[in-house]
């Protein structure tokens, strides 16, 4: 997993492959829970449900979430999960 963090912008540059990758990424999200707005650029397909759950938790705490998606299958998946009314999701 290759993740870059610049302030409130998180770039996921390669797939989230393992359970440990998910744990690491959730820790990153937890460190950002005081940000008013998080922008996440997802350049791979994979976005496991545990991470979606953490994003929803942050959103419930008042953090606005913007997801910029680079993969069409992932974009369709997030739409099917009815997340477009929770997060600002944009297909890049």
């Amino acid at each position, binding site marked *: 997993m290759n993740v870059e963090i610049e302030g409130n912008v998180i770039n996921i540059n390669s797939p989230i492959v393992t359970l440990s990758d998910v744990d690491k990424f959730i820790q990153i999200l937890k460190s950002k829970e005081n940000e008013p707005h998080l922008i996440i650029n997802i350049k791979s397909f994979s976005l496991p449900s545990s991470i979606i759950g953490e994003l929803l938790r942050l959103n419930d705490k008042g953090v606005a979430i913007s997801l910029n998606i680079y993969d069409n299958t992932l974009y369709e998946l997030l739409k*099917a999960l009815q997340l477009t009314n929770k997060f600002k999701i944009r297909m890049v």
Partner: protein
Amino acid sequence: MKIAVLDDSKTFLKYFKNLLSNLGNNQIYTFAHEHKFYEFIKNNNDIDAVFIDYHLQNTDGFEILKNTKKYLQDSYKIIITSDSSPQIKEKALKIGFDTFLPKNFSSADIQALINLVKTLRKFIKKEIEEKESFKQLLKYKEYQEKIIHQKQNKIMKNELEMYFDEKHLFETYFKPKDLLTGDTIYTKKITKDSYFIGIIDAMGKGLGASLTSFNALAFLKHSIKKAIEYNDFNYRKLVYDFYNYVQTILLENEILCATLVLIEEDTMHYANFGNPPILTSDKILYTNNFPIRISSEQINIDKTNLDEKVFIASDGIFESKYKKSIYYKRLKEIFPSISFLKEIIEDFEKNSLQSDDICCILISKNNLHFQTIFEDEIYLNKKNIDLFLKKLYIKNIPLVEQIHLILHEILTNTYEYGILNIKNKEKLTFNEKFKKKEIINHKFFAKIKIGINENWVNIEYTDNLKGFDVQKIKDAYYKKYHGKGIKIIKHLSYGLFFNENGTAIKIFLKVKS
């Protein structure tokens, strides 16, 4: 009327207040400074009218309006001005004042203005009340919908919704058209190789049809439960009892359609009371009974060989519009090439428009052949699961990203419920979960096999843990913000099936052309 006036001339305020009082207004609040005015309107958004002077000491009426609009969206806003320039009047109306009042007004001018505001406010208040009650109604409807869906799922207990055994794959689909459904489905494993399927459609709409349908279903459910308990299940007796019971709950002109099917090894027994035909890979089995009414008819129960594929449904999918005909025509055309129910639903959504409740089941023989392209066995702990997921991701196999995400979801569940023994995920924080110790048992393992044929990729997962609670997984699927894992798998695949005790899963993905 509740009126607020802002003017930096105390003499004017006194005069204007007296005038308004004499015209019968008893709630008049006057302000010579804008900060006190703001403080007041912030906490009094029920003000009917505000009078704002254009020329103020520190600012002007236009600036005041900007902030006033934040707190008073529906109040009538009047600018008072001694300046008669048309530009000021035009701008005042453009930026949101409702009218302007020259300072040389007469008592009759004010009376006319107050009368106008009174009439307008009456309409606005009525509209606001209606909007509010509509909002409440929507909220109530949403709440009721949630409860009703939960209740429907609880009553129906659709055991074969995504189920497989050694010989067959079972999958069901249920989509009500409205909040109250007249269609219900009940599926149940009776014994090994013996399954009951009941699809009920109470004719008509609304609460009456829904009550009839659920009542009939509850009869089936309870009768079968007791029969299994006493080990005396008898399909023929069940059909007759059901028929007799339904007659006791029908109104004079009411009718109920139902298909009651028993699958016993390779034989299918069926009594179809007015529902659409049962489609099989080899034949069309037309209804063999009239719909159930108060008056009695003879009951026919027939049997046939269980074909490769069987599709049983209420009339919702059959009778919805398709071009100039009905979707039944299309269904007959596509059925020979169908492997999974999702293919029918996708085609239906693309080519038709749901006009009634939809309730259906597809039973197919579990005999698709696959060439194995990947196989592995994992002794279950986090380190091994991570190694497996890494190994899988770099494999050169079709749809590897989707397969990887699906197995990631399954193995996350296996790890959390089976190895960390987390009973209720929602009640555990991430840090608590992180601190939990793995159950060290080298005998816990999972087997994963991936196969491929011309059309499909097949993932087979088995483990030797206590098994997923399949009912809980299915329940989560119907909740808006829960069950994300199963929703992901369902979205990415065309077929998802569990064995009876939740220790084996079969998933089918479509190979893209």
